[in-house]
């Protein structure tokens, strides 16, 4: 990410809490997802960027403008700087929206436009209401709105000022599941239309993949990997990221040989083939990562097929996960596959069924084991 609009390097520790470190954070102009488990420091990082928390030391720069700077060594310095929230021109949407309970929808949305003449403010509010499909709700109070409507009012209030940076903290977490799924696609479209650099916090990897161009993975208060969203999720750089991104199958393996850019790896009682391009030449011990949605199951191994990895396997158990079924297999090592329910029915799968599992070599990701 060379065309970063925001760079941040800072530390923040609350009394008695873990240290949160933004280590060389680069945020691009698109939608960046801060991804991590709860307690990994996502919200703290976001609040520091919004100017609602002051880091202990470090630097935050946005588009060439210094928002925060404090050196680690000296106590006070003329170079020290903290640009308060109200001067950062950010649009901030907290997890619970924090809609002003005593103001109407129009009052909430127009709050940040008080410096505009009345007529212009009203026009901007009306335009934003229309854009977000909130027409007719302008005189309602926040408590008279549904969760989805509240979410859009919070977004409207943040974007109506045309901020330079949009910060969203778990924008969908407060909603029930059907509404969340419906608004996920809608939110992505709205953010695309806006074209404002956006940082979005989430702990949901489907949300991260659906909404983010880039992903920053936070673990134990530190950003551990950042990059293109689909790449981070399919090619985690280390075990921690693989675990946070919830790759279903992570197994320790040993590289037997590397030839023509392909590695042969022993895992449990089985062997597999994977791309070796990103591996250091001396790597021997590796973690093998396979996403459950990349595993194909067949009843009989009769036809020719292109995937290089094919294992005779036994179904151990079937677990429903939303609209999919997670099939736990033993193929010499534990392997998980996601199938639709109809696929499960067609194959007549139940515990004990013998099957053949197929995985294409590029979909097996190897992480070198670091001692």
């Amino acid at each position: 990410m060379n065309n970063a609009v925001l760079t941040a390097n800072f530390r923040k520790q609350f009394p008695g809490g873990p240290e949160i470190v933004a280590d060389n954070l680069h945020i691009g102009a698109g939608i960046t997802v801060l991804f991590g488990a709860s307690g990994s420091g996502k919200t703290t990082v976001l609040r520091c960027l919004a100017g609602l928390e002051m880091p202990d030391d470090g630097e935050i720069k946005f588009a060439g403008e210094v928002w925060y700077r404090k050196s680690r060594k000296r106590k006070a310095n003329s170079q020290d700087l903290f640009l308060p929230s109200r001067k950062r021109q950010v649009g901030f949407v907290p997890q619970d929206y924090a809609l002003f309970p005593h103001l109407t929808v129009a009052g909430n949305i127009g709050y940040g436009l008080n410096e505009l003449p009345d007529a212009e403010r009203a026009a901007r509010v009306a335009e934003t209401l229309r854009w977000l499909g909130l027409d007719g709700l302008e005189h309602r109070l926040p408590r008279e709105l549904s969760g989805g409507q509240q979410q859009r009012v919070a977004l409207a209030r943040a974007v109506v000022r045309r901020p330079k940076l949009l910060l969203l903290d778990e924008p969908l977490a407060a909603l029930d599941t059907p509404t969340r799924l419906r608004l996920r696609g809608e939110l992505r479209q709205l953010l695309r239309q806006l074209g404002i650099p956006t940082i979005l916090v989430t702990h949901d990897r489907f949300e991260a993949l659906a909404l983010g161009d880039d992903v920053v993975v936070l673990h134990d208060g530190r950003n551990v990997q950042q990059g293109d969203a689909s790449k981070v999720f399919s090619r985690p750089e280390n075990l921690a990221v693989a675990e946070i991104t919830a790759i279903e199958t992570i197994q320790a393996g040993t590289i037997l040989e590397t030839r023509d850019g392909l590695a042969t790896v022993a895992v449990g009682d089985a062997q597999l083939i994977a791309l070796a391009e990103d591996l250091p030449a001396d790597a021997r011990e590796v973690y093998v990562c396979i996403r459950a949605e990349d595993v194909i199951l067949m009843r009989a191994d009769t036809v020719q097929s292109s995937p290089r990895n094919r294992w005779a396997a036994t179904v151990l158990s079937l677990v429903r996960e939303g609209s999919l079924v997670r099939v736990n297999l033993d193929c010499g090592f534990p392997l998980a596959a996601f199938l639709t329910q109809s696929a499960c029915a067609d194959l007549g799968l139940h515990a004990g069924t013998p099957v053949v599992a197929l995985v294409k070599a590029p979909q097996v990701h190897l992480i070198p084991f670091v001692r």
Partner: protein
Amino acid sequence: MSGADWQLVGFSLRMAFASLLLILPVGLALAWWLARKTWRGKALVETLVTLPLVLPPVVTGLVLLQLFGRRGPVGGWLHQAFGIDVVFTWRAVALALAAMSLPLFVRAARTAFEEVDVKFEQLARTLGAGEWRVFFTITLPLAKRGVLAGTLLAFARALGEFGATIMVAGNIPGRTTTLPVAIYAAVQNGEDAHAWTLAGVSAVIAFAAVFVSENLQQRRK
């Protein structure tokens, strides 16, 4: 109730209102300061603000007499610079009432401010609002009920104030005499019936103020 009695009631009400005008700016600032900021010596200010609640009112009156008397530091300056005398005038009445009811107001307003979630104030700041705007458009409206209840309590307390008033303002009929002072004087003069009439009026006003104040606090929950 004679014409003089009605005048007395009117004067007492006007003085209670005047004390509110003194209390509101000082009390709101103090309450906000105590609710939102931490600083060295905060405990000292907290104690000083609460002190008039527990001190004998005549002691508060004595302190005010010293400060605002013509030879006192504040009173002397007011007399020389503006020719304003405080002690034994209606100004002393308003001042005594304000000093005695300020603690009640500050306690109520402080609690009301503390109950306002700072997330609303923080969000207002991200929307470009400065501290004054945050206070008047977010904090104060959200703390409205508690602040109003505190105002009514302070008002009721002011109407009943006796000890501090008599020390700094005395009992000059038609000029500094308030309801409680008049009741005391009536009993001293053996006019028990008159005292009971004035006591009844006091009770009605106090009842109304506390009743409304309680209602406001109940509805807040």
